[in-house]
């Protein structure tokens, strides 16, 4: 039996289907979860997908954070359930305080959509085991509120504990996907919690799992093979 990975659909989610597809390509079984339903259908892990849940009203993720499904996700994530938040999912995880810091509007005030170069800083989380630390990857990024902020103390703590999981690669041509795309502090693109089971990032690995779409590479696929490997060997 393979692992069952839940993907939550909120009103305004966009990337739930792509995420399910990526999970299937990795060899796991995607399970659709509904925002109004507290039941996680006994999945082994959960992905909170990208999109604009509740239209980003109030703050991105601020309203969906209080949806029934999140009650269970928050409770089980604290008990060790692997949770990945992509884009809007990352915003949700900070609003739910499962991850420290907060997401704000891009510093240039524009929506950004491009292929982005990242460096994997931590290959030991539940979702990054199939990468190697220091590996450079190229995956799509598309957001309005992608600026990661936290106070200096929190940023220092994240760095000291190796909890910065991805960083934007800034040295190189913007046209080739280099540069900090949103003003995130310390070029942070993704982080993890202390236990390493909860990971959030702004760029979209689920759009880079097949040669035909996204960046034409499969740099995002290891997210989904990592969690599968973690779950079946656990």
């Amino acid at each position, binding site marked *: 039996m393979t692992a069952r990975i839940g993907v939550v659909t909120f009103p305004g989610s966009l990337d739930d289907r792509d995420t399910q597809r990526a999970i299937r390509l990795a060899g796991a079984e995607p399970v659709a979860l509904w925002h109004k339903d507290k039941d996680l259908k006994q999945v082994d892990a959960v992905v909170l997908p990208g999109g604009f849940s509740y239209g980003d009203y109030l703050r991105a993720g601020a309203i969906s954070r209080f949806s029934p499904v999140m009650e269970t996700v928050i409770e089980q994530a604290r008990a060790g359930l692997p949770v990945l938040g992509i884009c809007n999912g990352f915003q949700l995880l900070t609003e739910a305080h499962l991850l420290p810091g*907060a997401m704000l509007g891009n510093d240039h005030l524009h929506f950004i959509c491009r292929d982005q170069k990242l460096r994997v800083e931590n290959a030991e989380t539940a979702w990054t085991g199939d990468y190697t630390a220091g590996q450079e990857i190229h995956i799509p990024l598309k957001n309005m509120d992608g600026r990661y902020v936290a106070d200096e103390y929190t940023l220092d703590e994240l760095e000291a504990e190796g909890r910065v999981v991805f960083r934007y690669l800034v040295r190189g041509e913007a046209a080739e996907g280099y540069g900090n795309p949103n003003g995130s502090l310390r070029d942070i693109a993704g982080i993890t919690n202390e236990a390493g089971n909860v990971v959030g990032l702004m760029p979209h690995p689920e759009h880079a799992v097949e040669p035909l779409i996204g960046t034409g590479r499969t740099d995002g696929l290891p997210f989904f093979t990592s969690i599968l490997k973690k779950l079946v060997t656990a």
Partner: protein
Amino acid sequence: MARVVVDVMLKPEILDPQGQAVQRALPRLGFEGISDVRQGKRFELEVDGPVDEAALARIHDLAESFLANTVIEDFTVRVESDDVVAGAAK
């Protein structure tokens, strides 16, 4: 019915690009002498029944857990007096 106003502002150390964009537009519009602009949110809550201490405490909790994200924002809660409400309606 009483009105309670919750003002939410980004903390001083958080960059506010929207406020900066507004500030930069001011000289072009002939407004000189404004060195900084910060943009926030104002929530007007129409409260049924008396706004007593218990009601204000509940609104404070609401502001702290939902209307503001205290990681990045500060907030204030105040009861708007009848005069101000009347003035605003004119």
